[in-house]
């Protein structure tokens, strides 16, 4: 009773809010449950879906293979399936602090090689699949993984450059970071998809996936660089002075003393940038790559299943939410452990 009084009915305003929230709850939740569960159609039958008042989860049941694997050849779906599980496994494995050793890089290299073999094939007697046909969840995960893997070292260089004493290098780094942060990601993706081919020498072509990946890397590097710079600035000046006093040259000073401390401080904000980047990979839909969101959208193009966008995007939201929420919980735990 005391809990109720303190937490729900403390004063007139509080009581008003409680009543308001409860009224909204009872007005919205029962119809939602009716729609999402009681009246919902679970069988992949579009006629039954159209006849029903409720949600059409049959759409997901019918299209889940396409949503998860895109246009990958249907009877080879086991390959992206294993690759997806493996990649998620690598993420989880790397999240454990005990494994933050140098051999983790080797684990990643081995893992990515296996994923590459699974996805492309062409050796060990499994047929070759060109990367234009990759799609769905694995594409989203690969774009994120490679985007971060290449953007991170680049961002460290950019952050160091921004704090450099050499005016030209500093100017270039500041210019790059501010330019990229000042324009929307879409304009970079457009640049990679329409403008880049115009600048390549005759006969050289880079495929669409790689071009998009380059744009994502350029984009992520600028944002990560600002996080790393925050870490660099947070180190007490004494550490810089002490490193100087040891008469270490610049790169050893940076590598042995400054960076380990700066990166440790930056882990939580780095995780947040990582999550934002994961969400931003959905933008490759606009230049026509088949990531998870794109396969969801394309599934709606079939006339029999057109008009179930609410269910489809709710499903996409849940998938993205599961990934992002677990990452953000993990980042919060990291923050508390320090």
């Amino acid at each position: 009773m005391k809990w109720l009084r303190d937490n729900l009915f403390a004063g007139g305003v509080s009581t008003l809010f409680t009543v308001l929230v409860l009224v909204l709850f009872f007005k919205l939740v029962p119809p939602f449950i009716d729609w999402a569960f009681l009246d919902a159609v679970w069988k992949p039958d579009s006629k039954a879906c159209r006849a029903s008042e409720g949600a059409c989860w049959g759409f997901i049941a019918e299209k889940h293979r396409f949503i998860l694997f895109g246009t990958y050849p249907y009877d080879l779906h086991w390959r992206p399936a294993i690759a997806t599980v493996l990649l998620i496994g690598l993420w989880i494995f790397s999240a454990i602090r005990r494994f933050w050793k140098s051999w983790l890089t080797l684990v990643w290299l081995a893992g990515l090689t296996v994923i590459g073999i699974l996805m492309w094939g062409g050796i060990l007697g499994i047929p070759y699949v060109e990367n234009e046909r990759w799609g769905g969840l694995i594409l989203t995960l690969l774009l994120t993984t490679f985007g971060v893997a290449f953007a991170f070292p680049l961002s460290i260089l950019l952050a160091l450059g921004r704090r450099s004493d050499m005016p030209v290098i500093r100017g270039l780094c500041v210019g790059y970071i501010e330019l990229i942060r000042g324009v929307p990601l879409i304009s970079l993706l457009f640049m990679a998809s329409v403008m880049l081919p115009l600048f390549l020498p005759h006969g050289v072509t880079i495929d669409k996936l790689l071009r998009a990946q380059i744009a994502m890397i350029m984009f992520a590097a600028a944002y990560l660089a600002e996080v790393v710079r925050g870490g660099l600035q947070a180190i007490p000046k004494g550490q810089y002075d002490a490193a100087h006093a040891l008469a270490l040259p610049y790169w050893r000073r940076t590598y042995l003393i400054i960076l380990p401390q700066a990166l440790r401080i930056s882990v939580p904000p780095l995780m947040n940038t990582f999550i934002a980047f994961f969400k931003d990979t959905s933008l490759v839909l606009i230049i026509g790559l088949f990531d998870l969101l794109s396969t969801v959208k394309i599934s709606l193009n079939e006339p029999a299943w057109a008009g179930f966008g609410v269910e489809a995007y709710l499903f996409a939201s849940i998938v993205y939410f599961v990934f992002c929420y677990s990452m953000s919980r993990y980042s919060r735990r990291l923050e508390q452990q320090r």
Partner: protein
Amino acid sequence: MANLEERRIASGFGFLGREAGFEIGESAFLRYSASDSYLRALVVGLTNTLAVALIGIVTATVLGTAIGLSRLSRNFLLRNVAAAYVEFMRNVPLLVQLFFWYAVITEGLPGAREALSPLPGVFLSNRGIFFPTFSGVPELQGFNFVGGATLTPEFAALLIGLATYTAAFIAEIVRAGILAVDRGQAEAAHALGLSRAQAMRLVILPQALRVIVPPMTSQYLNLTKNSSLAVAIGYPDLVSIANTAMNQTGQAIEGIAIIMAVYLTISLSISAFMNWYNAHVAFR
């Protein structure tokens, strides 16, 4: 250059004066027709971007502040509903949310003849949202409404998506800003006999603003840049019109240069304004 000649693509900004030849679904302020120039089309796109960004910023700030304050409320229900909102919105990509709202409006809402009317004169239908203005009240004529003001489905979806998404981030900023104000300030305000609401308005918020303004600036910039996702749901913003122009003329370099220059200008102006405002509220 050799590449451009080979593909017979012209270069330079001469195309801006030529006739655009495509219609634009809606224009916030300017009149436009297909016989106008590319330049005018792009300006219409820019005004559309600014319209959705400005209304979005105001809506997101109001909504975000309310949610941020709710997260600090002593009321258990309010606090947790606000927390759940923030968690959900922040962990789903904006583009998914935009598609969701667009689907809700175009598929979930009834046709104009069966439009929902939550308030007298306001109608929700799959043709958009209609509401009365000083000059008129929307009325059903044939298959659509006439009179009053209209939010097209594209504009409404983009605005709802941007505002509700950014509000979640603003809520966290507001909350952090208020928590950053020393507890002693709240206690002192209490000792002076101010009520909780008065203390918040007169003592806490003015001090919290100093912490809030810098991260708020980057949220406003994010919202403006994110409005470029309009291209995915067909709202004719700057990026979407520049994209059409690029497809028609093939002049991708110029088109992208225009997009980037405009967004850089907007970004720099917003930061300049917010820096001025920040200096205004900072300690003196």
